[in-house]
């Protein structure tokens, strides 16, 4: 099954500002699979931060902007379960004009979370690669529970040669403590949830904690650094790009992932 050949990429604001490489990796993976990827210029934020904090007027404004930006897209892909869920499940609670609602109806069915899109449209044979490391996969709460994407990321990762994929489902399905403004309102609580999560990952050299949402990544990175843990947090798209040989240069400046480490493991 082949989806529309042209993909409009939605780059979540956190990715845009803090982790631009994730967007590049998504593009690299999609391009390697034969898609032409466009990035609508006017895009900003889906409105989720405002919505989750209760600011619906602001969220509505951003929803209208999102709809206007993407209403002609044949197929939208975003590397974030929570942004996709925001668009799919929560826009209906916002103040939209009738025309917006009609266009949203279409967008709702054309927007896909990255891992879900890949697993639905690409058989194992089309995504080959190797990743000879130990990997824990944490699916973001919103992709799990709001979109019902249970194990797309896990399945994608299991396709790669040499990967040691750890199935620690109950521990990894619990929240990392980010929760948007929650992590600001309740810093100690959020930190503690993050620590619990990191502790559930049994460390060995070159252990990756892979997530499919930049929010989780931001939080876990923050906790990992605070704990001085050597676990490497990465977005799923980055792992795919690495494993499929699409990532060539040094990565984020993280010494653990440069060529030297990769070859040392071999």
């Amino acid at each position: 099954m082949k989806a529309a050949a042209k993909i409009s990429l939605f780059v979540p604001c956190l990715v845009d500002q803090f982790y631009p490489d994730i967007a590049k990796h998504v593009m690299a993976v999609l391009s390697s699979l034969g898609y032409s990827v466009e990035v609508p210029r006017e895009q900003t934020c889906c409105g989720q931060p405002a919505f989750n904090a209760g600011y619906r007027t602001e969220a509505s404004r951003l929803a209208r902007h999102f709809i206007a930006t993407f209403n002609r897209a044949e197929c939208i892909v975003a590397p974030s379960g929570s942004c996709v869920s925001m668009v799919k499940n929560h826009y209906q609670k916002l103040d939209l004009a009738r025309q917006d609602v009609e266009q949203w109806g279409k967008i709702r069915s054309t927007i896909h979370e990255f891992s879900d899109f890949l697993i639905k449209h690409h058989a194992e044979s089309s995504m080959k690669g190797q990743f000879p490391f130990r990997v824990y996969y944490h699916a973001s709460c919103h992709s799990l529970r709001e979109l019902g994407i249970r194990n797309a990321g896990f399945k994608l990762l299991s396709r790669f040669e040499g990967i040691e994929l750890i199935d620690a489902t109950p521990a990894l399905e619990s929240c990392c403590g980010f929760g948007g403004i929650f992590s600001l309102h309740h810093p100690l609580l959020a930190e503690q949830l993050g620590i619990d999560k990191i502790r559930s990952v049994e460390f060995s050299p070159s252990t990756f904690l892979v997530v499919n949402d930049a929010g989780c990544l931001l939080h876990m990175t923050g906790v990992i650094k605070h704990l001085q843990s050597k676990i490497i947090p990465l977005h799923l798209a980055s792992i795919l790009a690495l494993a499929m040989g699409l990532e060539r240069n040094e990565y984020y400046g993280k010494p653990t992932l440069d060529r030297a480490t990769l070859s040392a493991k071999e």
Partner: protein
Amino acid sequence: MNITENPLWTGPPFQRKNDQGKVELMKERVNFSRNAEISLKNKNLQRNLDYSLTLSNKKRNELVETFPEWEEMRSHAAQLRTHVVENLEKYLREFSDNATQKGLQILWAKDATRACELIAGTLREHHVSRVVKSKSMLTEEIDLNNYLSKQGITPIETDLGEYIAQIASQKPSHITAPISHLSRQEVASIMSENLGIRYTEDPAELTSAARRILRSSFLSAEAGISGTNFGLAREGSLVVVENEGNARLSISLPPIHIAVMGIERVLPGLADLPLLLTLLTVSATGQRISNYVSIINSPSKQGEPDGPEKVFIVLVDNGRTEILRNVKYRPILNCIRCGACLNICPVYRKVGGHAYGSVYPGPLGAVLSPVLFSRTQYRDLPYASTLCGACTEVCPVKIPLHHLLLDLRADNVQSSARPTVERIMFSIFGLICSRPRLYRGLEKIIRCLQPLIRSRDGGLFIPGWSKTRYFPGLAPQSFHAQWQSEKMENNDISL
């Protein structure tokens, strides 16, 4: 005396003692952030919660696995509960008519005070001075024990957990597992100090000590008070679900039985019970069915050797019809009080029930407390969630708990209950993000200013965050800035 002075107290200081020396909830606005931080420091509490709640979740999850039709059951139950709540008047009328016909006496209570008056009045009328109680969160809600004590009537909790909480002058911290915040050692010292028994941590010995004492209470009590899990409209019967047998004794041994029931707890009829009962016990304790399920049809009839001579049902509104009027929050009335959302909630699992400062803690409480009791007092609770949705996923009657929390947050914003700084921040955020050119321009300016907002760990300084965690700096260039640059236009996306 503040309850925190009690060395056995493991919860945050949100409760106090009244003039009679009885514990009651504070009336001030609950400061959840502060309570949570106090709870987090209590390592003992962390351990106890982790131990008991992990176990409940595990049992529940393993049992749910054995029901291939679990999702259909949930959907069906959700529909059924919604139907009842939407036709509450009809079902309540039917319930009350049929119950009355069978000799059960119905008393209607508009609010907590009225409910307490009715119960105390009935007890006084029958010259009751000692009453045994089986577990009921509704009696906690109306603060019945304190009311009865003031009237000179002694209430004795007989559910083991509730009993231990009562002798320790503590409030339950969980709706089905009242002392899940306590360890076995803490229970042992509470019991040995208050009951004058020798210190032991052996659960069997502790239980039998409690049983000995409670048994005499059952025999001497002049009335029994119970909660109600379900009222069956077609039959006019009451359903009481429990594990210890204390409820059955409370409702069958003394000559008077008073059942307290929230008006939303009706089901159309007996035929609906198996589904709801299974969902309740599986979700609450991971049991296919509880040890005891009592269905009360009437007072004891002539010639019957046992059973109470009189049975009263106090139907309590206490704000429920208010919720019923508000379509947005109506689904919370579907709740069957299983406690599964508490057990699964990452926040509840860290802070325990007392931090919520309400009879109803956890995700259920974070929704119910503001809409049932007070928007002002429980203003913080909708933020006591990461919105992970685990509560919604586990709810046996599919209440969209974390979506209701979002609605409550929106209400707070609408009623200007949020700090000015936050309001301004989000207004600016909305303005910037709906103007792409402004957004793109500002991202460059902010990058120039970035060195000014560095935190000591080299990341960005974000108030509230940087105390405990590292926040990465902004990337040198945003993705869009890079994408727009010429290199990107040539479609060379190699890095």
